[in-house]
């Protein structure tokens, strides 16, 4: 049962347009029209994407009957956090290579006078 919902979440986020919609709702609630604006697709197409996200429990609509702005469910922020964390780790990996380069520069280049002592 919960597995069923999980697989809907998987499927919902497998699409790049829907991931983009999620990213934009993370910034703030938005109406279907606002969400459709940057895409070269119809409001209906965006509504379809939103329906998939809503069925997966990732997006809800507020009670405001007129505009019905879409709202990102809080759980998704965990995904967003994971997303930033992934990017951070990539940067950290790169900088660890730089650590190694800096360490090797010690060995082969001019004397470094004030190497900081740890502790």
């Amino acid at each position: 049962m919960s597995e069923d919902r999980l697989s809907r979440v998987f499927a919902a986020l497998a699409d790049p347009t829907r991931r983009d919609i999620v990213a934009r709702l993370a910034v703030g609630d938005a109406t279907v029209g606002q969400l459709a604006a940057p895409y070269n697709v119809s409001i209906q197409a965006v509504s379809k994407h939103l329906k998939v996200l809503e069925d997966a429990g990732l997006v809800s609509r507020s009670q405001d009957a007129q505009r019905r702005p879409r709202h990102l469910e809080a759980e998704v922020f965990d995904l967003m956090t994971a997303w930033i964390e992934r990017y951070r780790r990539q940067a950290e990996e790169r900088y660890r290579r730089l650590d190694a380069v800096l360490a090797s520069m010690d060995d082969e280049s001019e004397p470094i006078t004030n190497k900081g002592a740890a502790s």
Partner: protein
Amino acid sequence: MSTNATNETTTRETTIQADPNLPTIRIIRDFDAPPDKVFRAWIEPELVAQWLGPKSTEMKIDEWNARTGGNYRYAALQDGEEVATFYGSFHEVRPNERLVQTFTWEGMPDGVSLETMTFEDLGDGRTRTIGLSVVENLEARDGIMASGMEVGVYEGYEKLDALLAKG
């Protein structure tokens, strides 16, 4: 928005700041080397080539004129094959303090980011680098951060899984 990493941490782990309202990414990291040395590792091509390129790729530098007004171009090689090429200009090279570059991936030639790197002397032979990337809009910024998002999403699922189990 900040992250609370549960993985191993050292005192100088990379910090990422992505402003929800501005198309910027800020990357902060401390190094156990003085500014002049860190700066050299950023501008001398034979040093840059050892660390800058993406993981599991080799960096082939075609052009590298690290002076104010100069330019650069490099390719990432995977098994000897070019998988991505990047280019830009050195807007300002201020030794040991500040490096300002434009950056474009040739796969998206209309996209350009402005990369400002500042090197802060922390004393005791240590340096803090602060890299600020400014891109065209929030969508572009999110797209950059989402590269490799599939993996990030899968990692995130573990948390989501637990939340769903509660509900």
